[in-house]
């Protein structure tokens, strides 16, 4: 499903060029649950940005469902992210003073669906019920706990039925109890057939994935399935 062929990403800081990703080739199949690990500066975050179409690769090719997407321009990438990719961030990134329902609807808005339509309302409610927040539809982030906020973010990632979900340290800002809830939800989503790529540096979080890839110095150090 996701296929990276010799993908590199270079940053220039002053005169020095940093190879954050160095000719990485990697395949992720449908319904896989992949944990990306590695020390900071290993390139795991850069991998997530490039693979999720947030950033353009400096070299190499990326195929999504057999379509070459690495040469897409900014607008094409925005549309691709909207339709095919779900994002779960470490710091939730919900809009303040905006209800859970409206936060969840945001990807629908950019997909061109009227957010005051019954379809959008029903869909957003369904997603929130799925993460166990059916009774918190109109709460704003300030009225929700960290774990609840992250569940809203997961509902938002699911609303456009993406083919791929990227999670960047999804439990990083949570206490262990809330972290367990999120881990459970991610496991369930994978069981239901969602493909998930998750960046984490915590061993116990990585263990819920069926495949662990370790990055070092912009290269894949190890890749094994459990």
């Amino acid at each position, binding site marked *: 499903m996701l296929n990276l062929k010799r993908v590199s990403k270079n940053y220039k800081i002053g005169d020095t060029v940093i190879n954050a990703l160095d000719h990485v080739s990697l395949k992720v199949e449908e319904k896989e649950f992949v944990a990306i690990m590695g020390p900071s500066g290993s390139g795991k975050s850069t991998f997530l*940005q490039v693979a999720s179409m*947030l*950033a353009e690769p400096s070299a190499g090719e990326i195929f999504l469902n057999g379509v070459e997407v690495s040469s897409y321009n*900014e*607008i094409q990438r*925005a*549309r691709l*992210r*909207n*339709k095919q990719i779900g*994002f779960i*961030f470490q710091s939730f*990134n919900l*809009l303040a*003073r905006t209800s859970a329902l409206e936060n969840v609807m*945001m*990807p629908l*808005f*950019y*997909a*061109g669906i*009227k*957010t005051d339509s019954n379809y959008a309302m029903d869909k957003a409610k369904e997603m929130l019920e799925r993460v166990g927040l059916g009774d918190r539809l109109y709460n704003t982030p300030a009225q929700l706990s960290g774990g609840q906020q992250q569940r809203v973010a997961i509902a*938002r990632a699911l609303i456009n039925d993406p083919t791929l979900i990227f999670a960047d340290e999804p439990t990083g800002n949570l206490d262990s109890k809330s972290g367990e809830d999120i881990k459970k939800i991610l496991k369930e989503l994978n069981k239901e057939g969602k493909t998930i790529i998750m960046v984490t540096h915590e061993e116990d979080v990585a263990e819920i994935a069926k495949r662990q890839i370790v990055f070092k110095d912009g290269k894949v150090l190890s890749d094994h399935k459990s």
Partner: protein
Amino acid sequence: MKISAIFKLALKSILLNKSRSFLTMLGVIIGVGSVVLLTSIGTGLQAYVTDQFASLGTNILYVVPGNPFGEKGGFGGQQSVIERTKPVLKRRYFNSVIRNNRDLIKDGVFTTATVTGAKYGKITKTVTLYGVTSSYESVYNTQANKGRWFTSSEEEKSERVALLGPKIAEELFGQIDPVNKTILLNGQSYTILGVLKEKGGGFGGPSFDSYVYLPAETIFKYFDTEFIDSFIFEVRNKEQIKDAKLAIEKTIGKELKDDEFTVFDQTQLLSTINSILGMLTVGLGGISAISLVVGGIGIMNIMLVSVTERTREIGLRKALGATPNLILAQFLIEAALLSVIGGLIGLLIAYLGSLALQAYFPAKVTIQAVILAFGVSTIVGLIFGVAPAKKAAKLSPIEALRYE
């Protein structure tokens, strides 16, 4: 994508920060309010002046010494200042115009004026004596409300008779009926024949209502003057105005040089006044437009702050599928909405202000002023919204998401 959806988004974020949005709008509110209010005063004045002229009649031609419209004379009412040294207009010119152009000119008046003290009982006033001929009544459509006009025989005999404008009548006589009473003008007694009906006019300055009307011959005889200020001719019908003007110029031109007198009609006078008032309106509007620009800068300032403050939101929107153009539209529309809402509030304030002014002053909010203010405030919002919106659209989603 649906612009209306972006509108809702922009409106929502304006409402999310109500007090800040209002303070941002304040500049535009003041700008639009003052532009519309000041131009409404200007156009109101123009309408008022036009009205006043229409009430004086439209088939009237004036002859005055010198050239009040030219560079030398300077426009200053019905007479030119520089020609005061010797009498220019003479009664025989007036008579020959009337005699030679019976087909074009129905009637005429010649006028003179002087200032003196008037006394009735214990009340003394300084008044303008307006010396006219008895034909003034019909030419200017100025009937006596009480009493009667003087006759041409009273005029020929230079009798000491007078009519009062309603305002001066009230000032001198109060509730008493002035007809057949005697007043002292320059120490000599005059019989009041009548009081004229109200004409209005004269912003602050003397109006027709506060003049004392005497036969011109009486003024020449008792007040040591022989100046005729103007000839006023009533043309038989409006279409003949041009012909009559040429005929008068020809007749008087036999006696005087071209630059010693001017023949003009109401429209000429009116257009001169209107061009002055128009200029005034534009000038006032222009000065207040500066505050509109200041308001625009205020909007730009707040939008720039807002873009910085909402960097993470922008990054998130982009990550979730917002294209740069959609982000641009969102912030641009937000700036324009701030400006337009401010403009509408300013318009409302200006309208209420003009209503309040109407008691003292002829203010008039015109459709043009409304459209102009609305258009300008929209454009101000768009222009000053471009820089912040572009900044927002250019943000990279990764950088923006990382921003703390």
